[in-house]
């Protein structure tokens, strides 16, 4: 029985390793190509570089960060510090429910609300608001666990020393600092890798200039990969390979940072 399980487990893990190694190795060579990061794509994306997609993704992440983290953090504080017990449980299950809604549904919501109702159209701001709608519950779901994990005695101790509610909240945030940082990083990673909502609300497949206002549409890394695979032929595929391996490398870097944070917390 042990050997049967071992064979199954090893097969699965070898397959997973092969997937990740193939993705990285098939594209990593293109990352060293001169101008890959700094040029616009040329002649049907078969030459040039990924500059606009890279900038688009970066802008999107920055906007998502600016929207998600303040709202998410304040919401987390409300759930873990201020809300009455039953209400807090209700809100937590609400957040967990939102977390399990498919991302394309958020895309539809963004299309209907941000693009059409509020009139932002297909734009950077619609895309980042839509992504934030999805990222905020994701952030709160993990952040609440970390603020909850702060021991009761610490809270009671601070209050016994005469701290008011704001000061005790600050103490809780300080005590769960590395956990919150983990949640922030994971949320940004999630926003970075999500494709379907951006595809619906804010992406163009080809742009000759960078977005100059937040109401301009953008090119992003994930949607460019999709566009190349679906619309363009073999000639452009090297660019998608390069972008795919870049994305996987970035995600691996993100998770490595998370692992380091987690280890530091354990010690």
């Amino acid at each position, binding site marked *: *029985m*042990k050997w049967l*399980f071992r064979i*199954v*487990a090893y097969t*699965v*893990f070898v397959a*997973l*390793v092969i*997937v*990740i190694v*193939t*993705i990285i190795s098939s594209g990593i060579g293109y990352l060293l190509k001169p101008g890959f990061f700094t040029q616009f794509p040329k002649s049907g994306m078969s030459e040039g570089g990924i500059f606009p997609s890279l900038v688009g993704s970066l802008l999107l992440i920055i906007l998502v960060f600016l929207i998600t983290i303040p*709202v*998410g953090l*304040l*919401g987390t*504080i*409300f*759930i873990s510090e*201020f809300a009455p017990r039953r209400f807090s449980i209700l*809100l937590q299950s*609400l957040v*967990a*429910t*939102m977390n*399990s*809604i*498919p991302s*394309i*549904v*958020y*895309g*539809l*919501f963004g299309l*209907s609300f941000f693009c*059409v*109702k509020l009139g932002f159209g297909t734009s950077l701001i619609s895309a980042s608001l839509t992504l934030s*709608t999805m990222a905020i*519950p994701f952030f709160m779901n993990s952040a609440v666990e970390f603020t909850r994990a702060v021991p009761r005695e610490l809270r009671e101790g601070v209050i016994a020393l005469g701290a*008011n*509610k*704001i000061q005790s909240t600050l103490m809780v945030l300080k005590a769960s600092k590395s956990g919150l940082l983990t949640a922030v990083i994971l949320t940004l990673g999630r926003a970075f*890798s999500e*494709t*379907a909502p951006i595809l*619906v609300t804010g992406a163009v497949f080809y742009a000759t200039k960078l977005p100059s206002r937040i109401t301009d549409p953008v090119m992003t890394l*994930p949607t460019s*990969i*999709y566009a190349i*695979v679906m619309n363009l032929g073999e000639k452009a*595929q090297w660019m998608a*390979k390069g972008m*795919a391996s870049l*994305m*996987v490398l970035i*995600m*691996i870097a*993100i*998770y490595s940072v998370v692992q380091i944070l987690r280890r530091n917390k354990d010690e």
Partner: protein
Amino acid sequence: MKGSLTIFFIFVVSVAAMIVAAALFGIVFFLSLESVTAIREVGLKLFSPDWYPVWSEPDFGIRTMLLNTLLLTFWTSLWVWFIGIICAFYLHRFAKGKEKEFMLRILEYVSSIPSVVLGFFGVVVVGSMLLKFGAWTAQNFLNASIMLAVLTLPFMISLAYQSFEKVPREVIEGCVSLGAKDSHLMYVELRHALPGIVNAMMVVFNRIFGETMIVLMVAGGANILPRSFFDPVRPLTAALGSEIGEVEVGSLHYSSLFFIGFLLLIGSLLLNLLTNYFVRKTERWIKG
């Protein structure tokens, strides 16, 4: 002075929490609002098999796509559950030291691969491999199933592993001292880890049910019922992803796409309720 500051602070944080709650209701509201036109004008014909949204006499039947979604989700979930539990039990019971650490790290890295990259991998690598094995098209049911499994196996394994780790030591030691073999031990541990495992199974099911990019890229996009694993299929999310970008806002086509989104939303909310129900039920069994 201090008091009013505190009150202001409480006001701000509660508003932030309310925004989140409002977002959920906003999602439900807007999706149902936009799909009203389709429900009113197409009615029960929404569940007919043919989907020809841009013909002169358009058909908005989603039955075939719905069945494709269900087939793909159930089939993929079944083998992901099965293999995932075996791998998780191996990790929990037999893997030691460095081996275990390495495997857990691999799981974390694989779970971080964006789904669009997996879709790309499915088109370029798995597709051409399947062609060699006699498939008549590179993008098909099996390809989608494989890539969805790569996407969800890490979640299944690590969630199931975590719930195996939570089984109390006394239970395991009691079993071993009664002379239980590995297979009996696995049965006992499975019963005790059941709430967590049911949760993991539902998470995986929900993830496959709502996944868009992979099915959009590798499922093939043919609106037929598959007769073999090599037939192309088109689940609901693939139709949504490919058509919503090019549709006229406010048209009947637009509205019926929102109806599909509404179905997905309702499906995932129901799954969530079911999960809570089953987890609570299995937890009650353990408490006795």
